[in-house]
């Protein structure tokens, strides 16, 4: 069972230098957020120094509330849903 607290705003960041894969990850993350009906801000992080600060070496990467949960791949929206609520 998935339990999440409504109203707890999630801070989601998509790290990537702007390649097609990064844009696809942003789209799918948005789909996942909509499907879950959670409150979240999705921010794109494109500057290399900022990306490197997360210790990520393969892009695109996904950071949820300050934790890197994904790097170097673009999963399906339904898998992103599980990542976002932390059951994966």
């Amino acid at each position, binding site marked *: 069972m998935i339990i999440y607290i409504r109203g707890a705003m999630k801070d989601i960041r998509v790290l990537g230098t702007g390649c097609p894969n990064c844009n696809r990850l942003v789209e799918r993350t948005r789909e996942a957020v909509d499907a879950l009906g959670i409150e979240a801000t999705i921010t794109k992080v494109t500057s290399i120094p900022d990306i490197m600060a997360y210790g990520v*070496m393969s892009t695109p990467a996904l950071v949820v509330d300050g934790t890197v949960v994904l790097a170097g791949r673009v999963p399906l929206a339904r*898998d992103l849903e599980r990542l976002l609520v932390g059951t994966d």
Partner: protein
Amino acid sequence: MLEWIADAVAGLVSGPGAAASAVHFFVYETLKIGLLLLVVTHVMGAVNVFFPVERVRTLIASGRMRGFEHLAAAGFGAVTPFCSCSSIPLFIGFLQGRIPLGVTFSFLITSPLVNEVALALFLGMFGWKVTVVYAVSGILLGTTLGMVLGRLDLEKDVEDWVWAIAEKQATEAARRTTGRLRAISEDAFGIVRKIAPYVLAGIAVGSVIHGYVPTGYFESWLAESNPFGVPLSVAVAIPMYSSASGIIPVVGALVSKGVPLGTAMAFMMAAVGLSLPEALILRKVMRPRLLGAFFGSVALSIVGLGYLFNLVY
């Protein structure tokens, strides 16, 4: 089994032997290459779960590879899936881990050159011997060039802002979702789906060549007798980065019609390993001199390997 299906389909085609031969080639190669692609992308995906680039960096930086870190970097580069959009984070990440520039180059050269898609296509078109020769030469090329470039004192040709970031201590990001079988499989199918149109187009062109071009046709054209065949094919191949997965089946068919294997191998190495978009991306972190040394030395080595293969085969 695959042969039997292809025979059955080709049997349905009435008309000249060339058409049946082309159809047979198309069906057989599509089935075989499709299966190989799925197998190889799954295997490589699984390997990558155990050796994500972050862990590779830690391993090389730890000094446990001392003495053969160039070879190790090239080997890891071979099993790491390559994406040109990750080149910069990768490059800076390695320097951040205090990994020498030359070792970083060993990784950077081998990663696109020896990749899962190229290996699967090589297995399908040329069999395992040529595939092993290709993979081993790719890894040795990355190892050697990394050693050479590392001795050229090129650190000053890395853009200053890169060193500014690299000065900061690397933080290791923990990834939560790497060890899942289903994720590996999804990624593998994703890769195959993405390249499928190119591969199918390549096999289609290859089928036409196979069915309609007489055997030995190209011997007069690009054979050992033409001393400039190798450098010419490398020059032509460099702009073909985006369709590398479609080129290999075409070249496979050309080889069966008399194009020398070394020339073909050099062409494919250049198409797979040297890409203009990657050069443009890397220009942000490397000054022109370094970028030139990098791409120039790889191109020259591929030409050399092409001549060598033509001599051996």
